[in-house]
């Protein structure tokens, strides 16, 4: 930016007490906080609709091929899925505690909790990768090489298509979440967050909990019924 913009900033930027955390175009910290929060909530609405399309497809094919889905769900690993659910809920708890720590200004606890959240998130992805490789070895990857020893191969394959699309999209969201979390960790270690400014921690938390909620539905839909 040129000199002019700094001039303009300079002239008008001092109208309010110039809190270093408040971006130039906001009037005050409260406005910025509420905007950030609303922005994330709106983003989560779009995420709900994003997964909604796949839930719609799931609903249709599940009613079309109830038997095939029953066969196929025998191929999913319920203990691993359940364990992963537990892991993800733990990571949600640590994330919530991270937000709380930032609200209370507990710097060390904040860093620890973010680290723990990342750890559990990674465990989840690791287990997921293991499940995928298990499916791979059984030839359950949909496509021309799909193998199904049993009834209704073509219909069973549709379930696996949905399984991989839904869990895959979910995993992508986890990876993105871990990316954001890394950035959060770095900034937290630099001591950027305080009881006056913890919005990034909170909205990352919202995102993380949302990803958790998606899994809360995926687990019964793909493993249990």
């Amino acid at each position, binding site marked *: 930016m040129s000199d002019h913009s700094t001039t303009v900033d300079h002239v008008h930027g001092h109208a309010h007490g110039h809190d270093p955390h408040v971006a130039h175009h906001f009037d005050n*910290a*409260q406005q910025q*906080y*509420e905007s950030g*929060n*609303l922005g994330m*909530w*709106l983003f*989560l*609405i779009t995420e*709900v*609709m994003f997964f*909604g*399309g796949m*839930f*719609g497809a799931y*609903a*249709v094919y599940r*009613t*079309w091929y109830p038997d095939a889905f*029953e066969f196929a769900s025998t191929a999913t690993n*319920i203990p691993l899925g*359940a364990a992963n*659910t*537990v892991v993800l*809920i*733990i990571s*949600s*708890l640590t*994330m*919530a*505690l991270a937000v*709380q720590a930032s*609200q*209370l200004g507990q710097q060390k606890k904040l860093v620890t909790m973010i680290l723990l959240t990342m750890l559990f998130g990674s465990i989840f992805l690791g287990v997921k990768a293991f499940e995928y490789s298990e499916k791979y070895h059984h030839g359950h990857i949909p496509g021309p090489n799909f193998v199904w020893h049993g009834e209704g191969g073509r219909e069973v394959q549709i379930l696996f298509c949905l399984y991989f699309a839904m869990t895959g999209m979910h995993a992508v969201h986890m990876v993105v979440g871990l990316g954001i979390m890394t950035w959060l960790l770095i900034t937290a270690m630099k001591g950027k967050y305080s*009881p*006056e400014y913890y*919005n990034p921690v*909170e909205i990352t*938390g*919202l995102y993380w*909990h*949302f990803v*958790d*909620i998606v899994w*809360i*539905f995926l*687990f*019964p*839909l793909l493993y*249990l*019924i």
Partner: protein
Amino acid sequence: MQGHVTPTKTYLTIFGALMICTILTVFVRLNLGIKSFAVAIAIALVKATLVILYFMHVKYSHILSKAAVVTSILFLLILLVLVSMDYVSRSWQPRATPWEKHQVLE
């Protein structure tokens, strides 16, 4: 300054409830062998509600966050219900089969 600070105890209670729900839903499926859509989804809904209200602070937050939750559920339902409307009612058509005894509806 801005948001409600939830005490650790509440978080732990909610966490406990979520764990119980998870164990319950797996137990119902594995040990009782019940493959019930209703039970599994009901438990999932309870879990999601707990996460939304407490972990995501919706219980204590601005009306707009609540509105966002309601809006997303509402429009997800529009999508699911109207799509299923087609699939459910496709078979309602008077069966269009070539050799059926013709229905006289005129």
